[in-house]
């Protein structure tokens, strides 16, 4: 019996090839999208679960408050004393460890320099995190102050086939100081799906000796990611409840008024944590949801195609069903047959889908920015198989039940022009397909308009032609000389240095006081700061609203002069920038005067409103040098870069020269949106493609059925354009209705999305119209091919065939 069904299914597929191709194409693309999104979701939700004790690990985070109780800043890193105190104060904490970023380390081995991303960690880090050792002893590896644990690939890179254990690597810290690190352990490379990555781990014990006890008791140095491992069976709520008391004990009675600590489950970090300081930009659960929804939608579109085509074309199967019923088949057997056919199709589509993914795998990884992992794949076998079952059931049920209820007489009466088979349902399905395509198109338009806006809107300063060079201690010591050398080159228009550069967050702040009526008053909001060097305003092209720039000729400008932005002036309560001039102010222990007010500019991304901040001169406290290239340097850039490199290496022969364009840094702020936009492009194109595929199938079928009618109409004198209009008018009507449904939905969704930006475009009608027109155009193109063919056919031909 199954063999019989199978034969009929396969022969039908072969007989109606275009129909089979439309179905296979639609279903396999739909399935490929769904599997792809499954892989993505599986990857995104698999972060940090490689840790055996992942369920018991929490990260300590710290939140600071403004005087009105609102959040001023919220860090994923906390102060160094917190880890030991947690272990000491809370009986339920089994272990607490700190991990600090040490940046890119230049490790010297046999006169060659190797770069490795380094973290500093407490020796007990391996009690908390699961990093299997290939060589060395996890318990002692980082107990040694100069111990160094390397990942396997890094060890391979540096030592090749030599045994890396107990080898010495030299880490230059400054011009005069260098530290010998001894390799005490080799571990497997940390998994890709970890919320932090590294190539080398050095010992916190060594860091402590280097920085001294002062740093490690400093509650203001929030640079240490702190993880606690709870004892088995411990309840995190008990610790949460005890945190206020803990803070009072260690920071004084009012501690809870200005800051607090939170415990974040390790497994939530990647998708749920977006704090002001994180190891790496994290994923977002919202995108996981959005993509999951899109996956379901695309699959539904493909299934709808199948349902539409199967029911529309059911008349071609009427005879077979009728005969089978006459020779003794019952309803159930017919249903089983047709469901079976859908399953065959579904399994074929699944195989094609897997084929597509295997072929496109490298492109996909690049495009989606995620890795397809072994364990992802094996974990998905069952869901993927059930996917084909679900598709088979979902797409197959309705047509199967629908066809099984045909009375056998339908054929025996040679009743060819059967009833208009539930055409209203089919209409509704096509309309919803196109609504979805139009919605996706509109979203696409708005997302790209906003991205364009973010990248091109005037930031309030000149971000073009700016190069950033990272500076270390050694460079800081030589900065003035370095700058003087650079300024001799006519291709360089300016040089400055600062602790942070625009596009990075405004992470630093201190307490500030100003004077009103001679009374000192503490500011009730967070006034961030940027430590800068001279020429900062000039290099960045930041305009003054009042007062003057820092000037090296005024001795007091070094530490006793402040420049505020307009927002800060306004928030403090001065009526105009000029009113703020010469006002005394204290800032984090510095006592000085406001010498200038700068016009507001977008220091941070457009996601955030312009924050109040101030600048002051800190000649020795910077980590980035910014160079403004002179306008004519377009053609001479290579030359200038070579010049920069040569000067740089005069001062820092051991260091690799490395620069970034500020422009790129700004663009990177919208990486997530760019990625979202790309995904949206991909999936909306797929959705439109699948919808059009279905429409094409329907149109060609109906047009074929209307061949005779068209012949008669033409014989009666209808014109070709008249016939085309007659045949297409109902499809146009469908698409117009799809637009009516799509517009409000798209408007609502995009309005929500734009709320993510403090500065955003206003949605424009043209985006909607373009989306509508595009979908209409594409749909009409697929319709017209069939229709024009039918309309221009010789009527005699059409009539003769009957």
């Amino acid at each position, binding site marked *: 019996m199954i063999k*019989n069904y199978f034969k009929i299914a396969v022969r039908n597929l072969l007989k109606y090839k275009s129909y089979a191709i439309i179905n296979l194409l639609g279903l396999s693309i739909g399935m490929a999208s769904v599997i792809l999104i499954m892989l993505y979701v599986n990857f995104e939700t698999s972060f940090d679960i490689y840790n055996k004790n992942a369920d018991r690990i929490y990260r300590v985070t710290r939140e600071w408050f403004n005087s009105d109780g609102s959040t001023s800043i919220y860090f994923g890193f906390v102060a160094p004393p917190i880890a030991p105190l947690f272990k000491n104060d809370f009986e339920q904490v089994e272990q607490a460890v700190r991990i600090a970023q040490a940046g890119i380390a230049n490790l010297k081995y046999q006169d060659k320099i190797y770069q490795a991303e380094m973290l500093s960690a407490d020796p007990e880090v391996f009690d908390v995190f699961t990093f299997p050792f290939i060589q060395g002893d996890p318990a002692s590896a980082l107990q040694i102050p100069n111990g160094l644990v390397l990942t396997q690939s890094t060890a391979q890179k540096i030592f090749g086939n030599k045994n890396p254990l107990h080898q010495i690597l030299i880490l230059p810290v400054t011009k005069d100081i260098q530290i010998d690190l001894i390799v005490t352990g080799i571990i497997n490379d940390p998994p890709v799906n970890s919320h932090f990555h590294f190539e080398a781990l050095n010992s916190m014990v060594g860091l402590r000796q280097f920085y001294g006890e002062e740093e490690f008791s400093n509650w203001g140095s929030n640079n240490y990611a702190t993880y606690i491992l709870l004892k088995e069976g411990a309840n995190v709520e008990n610790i949460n409840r005890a945190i206020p008391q803990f803070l009072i004990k260690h920071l004084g009675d009012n501690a809870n008024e200005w800051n607090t600590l939170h415990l974040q489950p390790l497994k939530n970090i990647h998708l749920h944590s977006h704090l002001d300081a994180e190891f790496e930009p994290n994923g977002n659960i919202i995108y996981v949801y959005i993509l999951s929804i899109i996956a379901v939608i695309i699959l539904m579109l493909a299934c709808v195609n199948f349902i539409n085509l199967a029911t529309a074309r059911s008349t071609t199967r009427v005879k077979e069903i009728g005969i089978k019923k*006459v020779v003794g088949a019952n309803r159930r057997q017919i249903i089983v047959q047709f469901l079976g056919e859908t399953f065959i199709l579904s399994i074929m589509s699944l195989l094609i889908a897997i084929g597509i993914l295997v072929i496109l795998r490298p492109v996909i990884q690049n495009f989606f920015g995620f890795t397809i992992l072994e364990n992802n794949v094996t974990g998905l076998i069952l869901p993927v198989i059930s996917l084909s079952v679900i598709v088979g059931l979902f797409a197959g049920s309705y047509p199967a039940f629908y066809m099984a209820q045909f009375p056998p007489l339908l054929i025996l009466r040679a009743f060819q022009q059967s009833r208009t088979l539930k055409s209203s349902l089919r209409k509704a399905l096509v309309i919803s397909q196109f609504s979805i395509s139009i919605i996706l198109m509109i979203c696409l338009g708005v997302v790209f308009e906003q991205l364009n806006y973010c990248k091109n809107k005037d930031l309030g300063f000149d971000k073009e032609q700016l190069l950033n060079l990272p500076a270390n201690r050694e460079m800081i010591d030589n900065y003035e000389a370095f700058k003087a050398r650079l300024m001799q080159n006519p291709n360089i228009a300016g040089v400055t240095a600062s602790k942070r550069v625009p596009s990075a967050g405004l992470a630093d702040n201190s307490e500030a006081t100003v004077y009103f009526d001679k009374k000192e008053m503490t500011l009730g909001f967070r006034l961030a700061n940027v430590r800068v060097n001279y020429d900062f305003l000039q290099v960045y092209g930041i305009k003054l609203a009042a007062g003057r720039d820092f000037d090296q000729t005024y001795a007091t400008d070094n530490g006793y002069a402040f420049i505020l932005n307009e927002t800060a002036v306004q928030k403090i309560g001065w009526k105009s920038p000029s009113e703020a001039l010469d006002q005394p102010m204290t800032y984090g222990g510095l006592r000085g005067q406001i010498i200038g007010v700068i016009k507001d500019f977008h220091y941070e991304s457009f996601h955030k409103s312009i924050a109040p901040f101030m600048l002051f001169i800190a000649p020795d406290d910077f980590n980035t040098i910014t160079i403004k290239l002179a306008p004519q340097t377009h053609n001479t850039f290579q030359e200038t870069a070579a010049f920069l490199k040569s000067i740089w290496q005069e001062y820092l022969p051991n260091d690799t020269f490395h620069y970034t364009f500020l422009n790129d840094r700004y663009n990177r702020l919208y990486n997530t949106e760019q990625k979202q936009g790309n995904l949206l492009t991909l999936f909306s194109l797929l959705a439109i493609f699948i919808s059009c595929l279905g429409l094409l199938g329907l149109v060609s079928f109906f047009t074929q059925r209307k061949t005779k009618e068209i012949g008669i109409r033409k014989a009666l004198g209808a014109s070709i354009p008249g016939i085309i209009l007659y045949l297409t008018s109902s499809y146009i009507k469908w698409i117009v209705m799809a637009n009516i449904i799509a517009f409000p939905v798209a408007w609502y969704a995009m309005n929500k999305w734009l709320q993510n930006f403090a500065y955003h475009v206003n949605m424009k009608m043209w985006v909607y119209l373009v989306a509508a027109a595009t979908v209409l155009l594409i749909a009409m193109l697929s319709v017209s091919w069939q229709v024009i063919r039918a309309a221009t056919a010789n009527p005699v031909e059409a009539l003769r065939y009957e």
Partner: protein
Amino acid sequence: MIKLVDVEKYYANKFIKTWVLRNINLTIHEGDFVSIMGPSGAGKSTLLHIIGMLDDMSGGEYYFMDEPVHKLNEKKRTAFHQQYIGFVFQAYHLIDELTVYENLETPLLYKKVKTAERKSMIADMLDRFNIVAKKDLFPNQLSGGQQQLVAVARALIINPKIILADEPTGNLNSKQGLEIMEMLKQLNKEGTTIIQVTHDENKAAFGNRIIHLADGYVEKEEQHG
């Protein structure tokens, strides 16, 4: 074997009833060869479909081997098809996607006949109709007469008590038609009850009873030999 009592059939279209069959009282015995004749629209095919349980009656009673068909559900009726009734149509109605062999196999599949038994039954039938060489061909590769031959073979393969034939020779040339009629006659001699619909007097004469329908009524009945 078949007893129809006051069978009627109409189509209700809003307020107008269109009568197809009225007052049909008919008894058909085992071994009969009945020809139903009449002009177009007389209700011949409808009567055949009702007897074949493909169509519902609007009123009246229908006993098939003493079972009240008018009271049976679909499942039971399907069981009757499978066991007792074979159909032959004017347009042959073979499944286009299946070969001759597979077309003959289909009713057996629905009857859940075991594979080995199925094979021998089909082989017998191919033999008997002399179409062994054609078994792997598809219907569209056969002439009309050959197709109808396969259709008769398919009807016979379940070894039915009765064959219902709706204008079985309507699409065939006279030679082919005659062959099919001879075939039916032979089957009748072997004990199969046959009811055929036709408007060809010559073909009708193959039966031992001829029932004339007009406007839904039984007009007259002739008995032969």
